[in-house]
């Protein structure tokens, strides 16, 4: 955990880029929800899928973030129980 954070904070531009990318992801998801009239969708998880996506883009490499987001959305169905499920960083 510590090493990841130092790596990220060590490069200010990378951090800024990630922050903007995560906000962009969030804005796109919100736009998507609005355009497809899905504002009523409620996530079974805490934090919700959109926040989860935002956080994972912020903290993970893009391909991992994408996989995580897709997996999260697939899990967010009546067949899962939901609950607290934050973005976790797996360390080697």
């Amino acid at each position: 955990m510590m090493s990841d954070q130092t790596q990220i904070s060590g490069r200010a531009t990378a951090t800024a880029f990630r922050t903007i990318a995560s906000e962009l992801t969030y804005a796109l998801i919100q736009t998507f929800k609005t355009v497809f009239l899905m504002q009523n969708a409620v996530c079974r998880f805490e934090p919700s899928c959109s926040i989860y996506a935002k956080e994972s883009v912020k903290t993970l490499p893009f391909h991992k973030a994408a996989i995580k987001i897709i997996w999260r959305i697939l899990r967010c169905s009546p067949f899962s129980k939901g609950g607290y499920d934050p973005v976790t960083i797996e360390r080697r």
Partner: protein
Amino acid sequence: MNKNSLLAFVLIAFTVIFFNSSLWNNFWYGTILKRPVPTSMTNQQRAAQNNEATSEQKQETTDIRVILPEEEPGAAAADGLPSAQFGQPDPSLDADSAAGEIVRQAVADTIIIETNRLIAEISTKGARIISLKMKDYDYAGTRSGEMIDLIPAGSAGGAQLSVNNESFDDVFFTILNDDINVDTDVVGNNINDNNDNDDDIGNSITDDNINSDDVDNDDTDIADAGAIANIVVTSRHYITIDPDADYALVLEARSATTGHPIRKIFSFSDDTYRIGYAISGRNLTGRNVTLGWEGGIDDTEADVSVSTFGGGIDNRRAHYSDAHTVNHFEMKRRGVETPSGFFRWVGKSSKYFFIAVVAEETVEADIKIEGRDVSARSASSANVDIDYSVSFKFEAGSDEIENWIYAGPGSIRELSAHGMKFEKALFPVLSWARHIFWADAWFPPLAELILRLLLFFYGIAKDYGLAIFLLTALTKIVTYPLTRSSMKSMMKMKDIQPKIVALRQKYKGNPQKMNEETMALYKAEGVNPFNPGCLPMFLQMPIFIALFVVLRKAVELRGTTSWLLPWVKDLAQPEALFYLPFAVPIYGSNVALMPIIMAALTFFQQKQTITDPNQKMMIYMMPILMLVMFNGFPAGVVFYWTISSAFGLAQQALVKRKNLTPATTVVSGTPPSAKPTTATVVKTSARKKSSGGRRKRK
């Protein structure tokens, strides 16, 4: 909304503007695609270009000209110069041998056949279809009020034929029908404007209708003259077919290599867009016959798309099929595609129209689809670049092969009437989209179902606006259980949100404990059982997209109005209350009413759902986005979206009112009913715990 999210929005807006700017277009089309950037023309310039193109076409189709003395063209005509000797097949009647002898020169006659659906013009030169007018459809935009001619001006037309690679497209054919008397035709050589031709057609049609004969040989002579001394004489024969009987036009030519006659037989009947296209000839069996349709499909829609997203024009597509599965094809640049295999037909489609060349049976065929750059033809759209010429080459199974052609609107009723799976060409899934969850397999049937439902509702309501309304109501009813439970749990979540925030604060460093506590809270509040989650919402999306595609592309909606929306002139076009004198980037120059209503609805919706102060900006951002985005969409699509959104708001209000009073009883009533779920909740939390532990250990 912090600085970063604002920046994100600015980035999105910038990207959209950039990719629609002339800067990008110049770069992409000018540099990357190495072709001239289409320049916008005024209507007059366009009309002039069209005229030029038609006169070029006329000259091309009537390649052999009667060259009359320059001084007195009128006198020569009065002599009754024999222009052609049809009726007796003569091998010398081809282009090369006729060049020297004025007397024996052939004239390209044009036979105009009118059914109650279409007006086809067939030239004796190559026996090709050189014009195909749709009686029920008019051009949109600058040429409105004019019947759509599927064959673009200046193109090679349709119904090409070659046998063993010998092309018959420049060979003069003889008309074998007794009812068309060609010998007495060519007299006049008056100089006519091209535009007069259309008038003449109209006149003679009315004449023909009075005549009760099956087929009339009421001939009108038009001499098209270039500005030069060569005077082109064509004769035009008008035939209106009898509603009860088919009409077959038989044209014959001799092969230059074998000397055998080849016949092209076009048959027409009322109430269909199907044109019989039989080929017969001695020793035809075993030879390679190539049937083609070289001319593309004309641009029938308005040239200038008012804004970025909607667009009136779609790319052309090519299709080929064995009458069971249909392959679709779209080129971004010019090129040739040559699929081989067992096929039945090859065709091409524009947004609203479809042309196919169909063989008698499924045969082993070589198909050639050639994409040609036609950007010069359309005035301003960068979209329509590629038009297709298609050909279908196969070995003739007998001396007479009964092929046919479909050329007409892409309406599902017409297309599916032929049993050739033409209707599959309506909603193809192309390029990247087909990789999303096998969209290829499920999207076309879904869109087809929705279109059929729309037509069903139209059958009841007799009004497309009302039909869209009913369709929306139906989709809302179908998805109501989903939305209701979703809304209910949303209200609950809203209630318990402060508690969750408090929990998050309390167990900041302990995700395991946090998880347990959240689950316990959910259990106590009874949130879970009602909430379908995010995935089902995604599953609704295909319905939305299919509706969007159907409402945008259905030819049935083209040019229709509705009493529900009296200010809308065409449900398939973006509406406009009035036009701004300038075009706002992305928004366009039209000011439409429904997107404004929709933006207002979005605003209320957002105001109700968004409580997070960080997202306050969204409440104002989203309506603007919706307004800008939907302004250029066809009115039918926006109407659907607007009422759908209104329905959503109404449902929300309904659920809210129902839930407000008995809220406490629901919560207290939950524990006994939620008992079976308690065990599973514990189980999952236990699993979460163990996985969390594993992560920690690593």
